[in-house]
């Protein structure tokens, strides 16, 4: 179960609309309550470095992630997952998403943006003890009016 603060949910969907027809991407910050529940209390936007194919690919610069991670640490937050958009494409993981996902145990949130409007948003949990076994599992996504600790790292 991924529980996400309403404001964060709206922010990540709006991000996808702003970057349309390109994919947006960012980091979900919060805390892990237990193995079955992650809470998102803040998001951090990231730039998409895939300038060669931004309409159907995304990549976050590791250096930017390190900066986000450092800021989050100062607020006592952890990386619990990532988000990106699929412009004019279903809010389902693709084979590319699976091949390039390496944060086992983290949530990957995908929003379909149709003609510039955010539509469905779905969450998938990356499971597996190691790379060869990894797989995405549909993850229930609950939008919560307000989760305590809604600080922003920037």
């Amino acid at each position, binding site marked *: 179960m991924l529980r996400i603060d309403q404001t964060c949910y709206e922010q990540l969907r709006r991000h996808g609309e702003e970057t349309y027809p390109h*994919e947006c*991407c960012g980091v979900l910050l919060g805390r*892990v309550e237990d193995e079955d529940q992650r809470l998102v209390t803040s998001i951090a936007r990231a730039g998409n470095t*895939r300038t060669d*194919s931004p309409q*159907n*690919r*995304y*990549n*976050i610069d*590791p*250096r930017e*992630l*390190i*900066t986000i*991670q450092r800021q989050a*640490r100062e607020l006592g937050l*952890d*990386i*619990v997952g*990532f988000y*990106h958009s*699929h*412009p004019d*494409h*279903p*809010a*389902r*993981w*693709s*084979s*590319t*998403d*699976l*091949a*390039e*996902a*390496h*944060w*086992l*145990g*983290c949530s*990957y949130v995908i929003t*379909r943006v149709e003609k510039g409007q955010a539509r*469905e948003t779905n969450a998938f949990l990356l499971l597996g003890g*190691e*790379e060869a076994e990894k797989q995405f599992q549909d993850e229930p996504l609950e939008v919560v009016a307000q989760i305590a600790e809604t600080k922003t790292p920037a």
Partner: protein
Amino acid sequence: MKIHIPTPLRQYAGKKASIDVQADNVGQALSALTATYPDLRRHLYTDEGKLRAFVNVYLNDEDIRYLHKESTPVKENDSLSIVPSIAGGAGACCCSCRMNA
């Protein structure tokens, strides 16, 4: 020096977010880390002993691939970050996704 462990690898590192090691270079630091937490090794290295392609290692804010890789010297106050890559995209979609949209 301090090594920052990413969320997915903490379960193999005593659930710690960071670990202090003594080392003169990046290779020694990673060796010290995997000596203490052997289960980390297969997540960081291939069977041939090379760092996995999707595992980025940054010394402070610099990618070690653009420094001297694992021979890059380190100082006591440096920090090493292990950052699995984050990428993907709609690109080639799974066969059932359009039906599930």
